[in-house]
């Protein structure tokens, strides 16, 4: 790529505009913590320049730069509407500097809540996925069992897992175990259904090729049928993951004493909308990171598909 293509981009102009508007006088009373916006923008700009220098594909650079432009544009509009012209209700719409300041100030509390939420998700999700995959492989290997299990799992999977929460609270000792239980249910049925559909639709030729090699029953199950149905299994896993986040944050807003959903609910009840926004942003980041890791794992395990 030419120098022009790499570095002469609209995004850098937006960066300068974002810095310049910080020089306008504040209309809002109290500290707007503009320096946090400046630090954040400088950090993002340095990252953008590094990416611009090293990225190889022009399409990738354009995508990256467009995303950064969106962030700058949002920050410009947000700063102008709040700190600089005071167009919105300050209590509901804090200026961006205050949100960044709060995010850094609450750093420890947020980390604890992330660990609490992600821990619950991982526990419920991994238990459910492992159980559903093993059970699905066994049930799917028998046509008769697979058929009946498919219908039963369709019925049980159709019940929105959130309605289990009241029953779970009566059934289980802690709210944490209720959350794990609900996430387990939310993941178990789609993964089981995906695994069974994968196992029952494995190409007969694949099975025949394995048969003529005289593979044993366990090898057949785990080295042939499992990889052959992996794509379908991942469809179920994806579905389970999406529902898990929705469920957990909802559950945390109902009755938990920790977690990201609790953080948001608690502070919005107290009227602290700066922290509510902090919570929203953190949840967004956490979900994006987990989905990214999940997609990488999926891509790696399915790398043999083109």
């Amino acid at each position, binding site marked *: 790529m030419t120098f022009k293509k790499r570095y002469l981009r609209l995004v850098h102009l937006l960066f300068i505009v974002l810095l310049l508007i910080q020089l306008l006088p504040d209309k809002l009373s109290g500290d707007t913590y503009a320096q946090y916006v400046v630090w954040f923008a400088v950090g993002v700009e340095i990252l953008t320049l590094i990416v611009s220098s090293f990225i190889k594909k022009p399409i990738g650079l354009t995508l990256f730069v467009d995303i950064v432009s969106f962030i700058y544009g949002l920050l410009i509009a947000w700063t102008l509407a709040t700190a600089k012209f005071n167009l919105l209700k300050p209590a509901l719409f804090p200026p961006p500097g205050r949100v960044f300041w709060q995010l850094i100030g609450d750093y420890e509390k947020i980390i604890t809540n992330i660990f609490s939420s992600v821990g619950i998700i991982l526990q419920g999700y991994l238990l459910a996925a492992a159980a559903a995959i093993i059970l699905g492989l066994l049930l799917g290997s028998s046509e008769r069992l697979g058929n009946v299990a498919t219908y039963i799992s369709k019925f049980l999977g159709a019940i929105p897992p959130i309605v289990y929460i009241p029953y779970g609270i009566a059934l289980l000792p802690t709210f944490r175990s209720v959350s794990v239980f609900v996430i387990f249910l939310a993941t178990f049925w789609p993964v089981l259904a995906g695994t069974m559909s994968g196992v029952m639709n494995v190409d007969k030729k694949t099975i*025949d090729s394995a048969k003529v*090699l*005289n593979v044993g029953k366990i090898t057949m199950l785990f080295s042939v049928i499992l990889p052959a149905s992996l794509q379908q299994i991942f469809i179920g896993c994806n579905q389970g993951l999406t529902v898990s986040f929705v469920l957990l944050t909802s559950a945390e807003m109902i009755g938990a004493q920790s977690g990201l959903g609790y953080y948001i609910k608690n502070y919005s009840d107290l009227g602290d909308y700066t922290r509510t926004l902090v919570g929203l942003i953190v949840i967004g980041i956490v979900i994006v990171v987990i989905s990214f890791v999940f997609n990488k794992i999926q891509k790696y395990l399915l790398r043999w598909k083109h």
Partner: protein
Amino acid sequence: MSKIEINNLTVDYTEKKNRFTALKNVSFSIEDGEFVSVIGSSGCGKSTLLSILEGINTPTAGEILINGEPIRGTGTDRGVVFQHYSLFPWMTARKNVAFGIKQVNKDASRTERLKIADEFLEKVGLEGFKNKYPSQLSGGMQQRVAIARALAMDTDIRTILQELLLELWEGDGTSARKTVVFVTHDIDEAILLSDKIVMMTANPGQVYSEIKVPFDRPRNRAELVQTQEYNQFRNKLLAMFYSDIVSKIGGDEVVL
């Protein structure tokens, strides 16, 4: 005693309450070290015959004897190369070969298996592709990996579908030749490779004729196809192949 004896093999399929006969009273035998091609138009039961030889299907009547023993299910005494999908798409070429070796030789360590796999991939000229997945290989390359796997498993009888094997099979004449059942619909390929050609007809699948191939080995395709004997022999086979179809359709206005 013949290496493989096929006696009065009949196979009926039931599909949506309709019974149809895929093979009817098929009998022929294959000697040790003989290369036999089975040819015929589509629907003549070639694949059914193959699946019974492999042990995937069981016949309705009749039997196949190998060394005098009836076939019972699949077995590693028979190496099989399928036309399609014979490789596992989630394994690289060398893992596919190594997986085959593992099934016949449980004692070999992982590194030993991979080493044997590499040797055989080199024999079929794929040393540069051993870490590729089947989807990254051409159809011909996939077949060669499948052949490498069958060879690496060091089994006795081969059911194969590849011309490349002529060279591998004829070898330098010092080692014993493997017994091969080769299923094809390509007459030239069948003549080039075979000692004997079994021609089948469809509806129901039956043996139409058994023909000995009179050409000396080792054969060279380019030279062979220019000889008059080859062309006469080929025409005779083609006439048989199509006379069957014409008599089945029953008209002389058939355009072939």
